[in-house]
């Protein structure tokens, strides 16, 4: 396990470069992101541990970052003042572009993995905006009407994007649909819907809505997404059956889940970061040989659904863990996490996995 101290800055998001296996970016904020400056770290993994290759300071807190998919030196930062900044790590100090349209804190930025010429942002102001890096204004604004903590393009289709919001809904937009009154919205799934009743099991209890803080598209199954948030549960949904409720429910985190990320290597594995100061690795029970329901139907926890389970946890952080990301390269299992303890840790998931 390698670590790096972002002294004076509390981590909010960590992302591996899609171009280099030794480069990591961390969006961080002074004073826990409540007030003060932000700093975007560009870290290099070297034989001598993690070193800061460069950093960019910003006027307001930074809550998220995303590498450009088309240019290996460019990277986005989501700022608390509502601006989105594009930095070039070959240059110093100042962003090469800044967009100021959001009325409130920007909580997520995400580059289109398929088309590579657009990116999106989501904000506390209740909107998602689609941008082109060469264009001075946003291309499209999609309203969600509630604080949107996380938005992403589908990794499988260039015009499909998703968002989770504080109103406990997972929304899917498709930009190919006409921009009628629905603003490209094609699906809106209430995340708190209990799983469908199964024969032989007590009917699931109703759960009140709660803020959804994070979500991620499965990298292999193009209709599967995972969501998580304040109610501490990780759920997976299949958007082909939006009314069916979650296909897996993974309880275990003791506090809100701040970030989840599907493995780029295995279709059933995901990683989570939580306010309970742990990162946990899970299987959603969809892979063969994993998480089969016990024959006696006596599951330990009635909330468990779908046969998934926790496979291991990393408890080295000493404050809220806010970001986690998988390394795309090399041996499958390497990942990076960051948190309010000013620590960035790079570690191997396989080292914490139980039998």
């Amino acid at each position, binding site marked *: 396990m390698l670590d790096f101290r972002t002294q004076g800055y509390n981590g909010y998001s960590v992302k591996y470069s899609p171009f280099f296996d030794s480069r990591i970016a961390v969006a961080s904020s002074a004073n826990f992101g*409540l*007030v003060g400056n932000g700093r975007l770290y560009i870290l290099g993994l070297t034989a001598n541990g993690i070193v800061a290759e460069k950093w960019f300071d910003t006027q307001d807190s930074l809550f998220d970052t995303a590498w450009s998919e088309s240019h290996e030196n460019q990277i986005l930062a989501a700022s608390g003042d509502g601006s989105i900044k594009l930095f070039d790590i070959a240059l110093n100090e100042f962003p090469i572009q800044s967009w100021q349209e959001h009325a409130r804190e920007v909580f997520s930025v995400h580059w289109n993995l398929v088309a590579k010429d657009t990116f999106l942002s989501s904000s506390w102001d209740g909107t998602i905006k689609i941008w082109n890096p060469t264009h001075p204004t946003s291309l499209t604004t999609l309203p969600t009407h509630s604080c949107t903590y996380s938005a992403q393009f589908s990794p499988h289709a260039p015009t499909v994007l998703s968002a989770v919001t504080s109103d406990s809904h997972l929304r899917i937009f498709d930009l190919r649909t006409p921009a009628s009154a629905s603003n490209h919205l094609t699906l809106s799934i209430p995340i708190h819907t209990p799983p469908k009743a199964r024969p032989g099991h007590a009917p699931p209890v109703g759960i009140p809505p*709660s*803020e959804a803080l994070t979500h991620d598209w499965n990298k292999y199954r193009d209709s599967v997404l995972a969501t998580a948030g304040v109610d501490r549960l990780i759920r997976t949904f299949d958007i082909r059956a939006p009314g069916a409720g979650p296909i897996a429910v993974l309880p275990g985190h003791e506090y*809100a889940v701040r970030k989840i990320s599907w493995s780029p290597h295995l279709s059933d594995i995901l990683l989570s970061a939580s306010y309970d100061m742990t990162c946990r690795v899970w299987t959603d029970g969809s892979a063969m040989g994993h998480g089969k329901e016990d024959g006696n139907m006596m599951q330990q926890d009635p909330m468990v659904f779908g046969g998934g389970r926790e496979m291991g946890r990393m408890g080295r952080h000493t404050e809220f863990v806010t970001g986690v990301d998988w390394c795309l390269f090399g041996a499958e299992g390497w990942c990076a996490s960051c948190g309010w303890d000013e620590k960035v840790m790079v570690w191997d998931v396989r080292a914490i996995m139980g039998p």
Partner: protein
Amino acid sequence: MANQTGRGLQAQERLSQVSDHLKASKADIPRGRDALLEKHPDDIVVTCALRTAITKGGKGGFKDTQAADLLHGAFTSLISRSGIDPSLIEDIAVGTVLAPGGGATEFRAAALAAGFPVTSAVKSLNRQCSSGLQACVDIANAIKTGMIDIGIGAGVESMSTQYGPQAVTEFSHLLESHAEAANCKVPMGVLSEKMAKSKKIPRADQDAFAANSFQKAVEAQKKGLFDEEIAPLTVKYTDPKTDEEKTITVSRDDGVRQGITAESLGKIRPAFAKDGSIHAGNASQISDGAAAVLLMKRSTALRLKQPIIGKFVQASVVGVPPLLMGVGPAAAIPVALKKTGLDKDDVDIYEINEAFASQCLYCINELGLDINKVNPKGGAIAFGHPLGCTGARQVSTLLTELRRTGKRVGVTSMCIGTGMGMAAVWVSE
């Protein structure tokens, strides 16, 4: 850019956002008292709960009344009081302990005689002293799973007519040769005496607890606190002195005695051991009585315009060693509370059956309950413990008292012969 004041406000908002993330997680969303008090259409609610009076076994007003007739009385009162169309009742569960054959035949007959059509099913069940509660829980669960929409949980016992040695079958050699199995037939009094001794519950404490039960019941009777839950029943009664058969209306628990104090109880000779501590005054009375609880989903109750008086939330059942059967509530209550996410202090009233003062007192102390919250109108020591009836009886006793005092959350619980405990959480509305 925002000025300093704007910054301060923004920081405040960001802080409250993060604390909201944590607050909601801490509150354990689907659980806890607040969640319990929420109303949902699929709640299992009680729209009527009543009981007959409880009378002394062999001497009281019901001494010549068969169990099925008591049950018939509870059923007819339930139908008239709730105004429910009897043909809507899909199933009736009746808890009873002593009836030969479980009472299955005569209870079905009693339901038909009471005005339920042939389409209303009836079963009897026996989980010893918790049979009445088990009946309510069975019906609630059947409604929850969608097997039925409306049902009645009931309990009845005529200890006058059915109490006696024939209630237990001879143990086979196989059972006798297994130590824990053989313990199942040790008489309640004997094992409770042993338990009182091993758990060190002094006789003085037991007598004080028992006297308090009598005093609370006397007070409650004076104030008429039982009037709402008791359905008066007119029965035949043979006067033991004149052998004259009379028709009387029983609307009062006749086991409640005035003027009982710890001192007066202190003079009674122990019943089960010479140096023992348990006697007729600090154990539950042998009694007759019946009780019935009408259960359905909230959505059904609203559709039928039935008055909702309470809600069934959760039940638990646990096993304990047969010789320590009295600790049952101490084992079952924490399980029921854990399942509902309640703390013991979130509960406003505990109805814990007073099988013996010793075991009830032990459970209260073991759980660290506030004794003022336990059995506020007295318990089985004061007005009796008709075995199969008690569990259903506690529901009406609890819900009327919660409503009268403006409180919300209650627990009913009892120990169970052969070593078990059962508990259920109820909410008054």
